[in-house]
């Protein structure tokens, strides 16, 4: 008898609907209003690559050891260097990073011995052309500049 009443009055469907209607309360809103508020990503987020500079002197931290290029599974990093005769060390000249093929695995960041190359929290990497995704040294040091929307 109870089962019959449950069937006639659609009790099981109403139970489900109660859950759905409970969630209509505004406190359950989880939508993020992007791009007005950009999400805060974690510190270790593997986003846009960046070449770091020494904060005091402004010189690049990269020692042109090529370990990042060797670690990359897609071999998309090309490190250009020349030997400085006075200090007998290699100095960085060009650094090319192809973000269109990058899978953001983080192996280059793990390989860098001096923390020069790191993957930052930027995730807005779109560009209007295929060549725009290949970053050279300036773009790597400055970082991508996503459009800021004004409301």
């Amino acid at each position, binding site marked *: 008898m109870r089962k019959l009443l449950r069937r006639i009055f659609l009790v099981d469907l109403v*139970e*489900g609907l109660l859950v759905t209607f409970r969630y209509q309360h505004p406190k359950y809103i989880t939508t993020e209003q992007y791009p007005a508020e950009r999400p805060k990503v974690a*510190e*270790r987020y593997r986003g846009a690559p960046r070449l770091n500079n020494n904060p005091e002197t402004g010189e690049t931290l990269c020692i042109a050891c090529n370990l990042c290029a060797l670690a990359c*599974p897609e071999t998309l990093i090309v490190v250009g260097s020349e030997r400085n005769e006075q200090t007998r060390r290699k100095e960085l000249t060009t650094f090319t990073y192809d973000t269109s093929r990058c899978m953001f695995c*983080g192996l280059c960041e793990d390989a860098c011995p001096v923390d020069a190359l790191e993957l930052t929290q930027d995730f807005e990497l779109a560009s209007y052309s295929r060549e725009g995704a290949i970053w050279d040294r300036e773009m790597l040091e400055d970082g991508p500049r996503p459009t800021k929307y004004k409301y």
Partner: protein
Amino acid sequence: MADPTFLDSTELVLNMGPQHPSTHGVLRVILKLDGEKVLGTECVIGYLHRGVEKIGENRTYQMFAPYVDRTDYVASVSNGLGYCLAVEKLLNVEAPPRAQAVRVILTELNRISSHLVWLGTHCLDIGAITPLFYTFREREMIMDIYEKYCGARLTTHAFRIGGLQYELYEGFEQECRDLCDWFLPRVDEYEQLLTGNRILVARMTNVGVLTAEDCKAYGVTGPMLRAAGVPWDLRKAQPYSGYEQYEFEIPTGKNGDTYDRYLVRMEEMRQSVRIIRQAADRIPDGPIMAKVPKVIKPPVGEVYVSIEAPKGELGYLIVSDGSTQPYRVRIRPPSFINLQSLDKMARGALVADIVAIIGTIDIVLGEVDR
């Protein structure tokens, strides 16, 4: 015997094409129908074939680890675990206990995450739209933990050969516990929404029945096998990464139909929460990485290691020739092998049941095609 009239149906071949909202990816199913009843199906796959096994022969062992994440992209942590365990076995090293405990936590979170995707999309295909939002909201919390730990939400590359790369961040255990506390009532909520619902019950019971003998004959593993009544789970049968220390049960079903698989997966989510709680309470201290050389050159040999991925038995056969690159990497994909049983389950069903059956096999095309 009346003459055949205009309304008599002949066999119709219908293409459920690679672009279809319910095929969970680029899967093409060619259906032979007699009216609404299915006479036979044929799966055409390979639309997402990227040659991962060929890539494996051209990358070093550490470099290949991000690629395996992209086979089962919904549950990428398990893939990484299987691969790292296989290479570690080849090198004859074992990850330290701390690494093993963290691996267990992340893998179980991964299992919950994969089952949430399954639940959301399966019920969406059947017609219940709201569970999708709720399951993906829970999944956001899990992916936040992944993001804080290793830096990526989906293709995590969380484990390295020999252990872990990253030390745990501040508050990892507490966040895991909070997630478990938040999540268990949510599972009850999904049950309230779905389990007793007559529409769901009608669409799921006696649909896609696969008995235990059929499962074993077709090589089907994972929740499908357990729903048929076989209490077999690789975490209990051949434990890896410290699973023998944790207490959990293996949920089984009786009939092997879609409804039983639904119940089995819901219960598995609860058991995963149990494992996470146990593991988070006692993560041992110690190193996170075993002594593994920088350049990994395993001795000549081959090894097959398999783990219980959320979809079934995920195995890696790695053949090494002594150099830094594997000679052959074979990924034994559970979704590929489970998908074979689609034809068996679909015969005699209705067209609307095909959608439910594809959903219940829980395929991820990245793994089917590699």
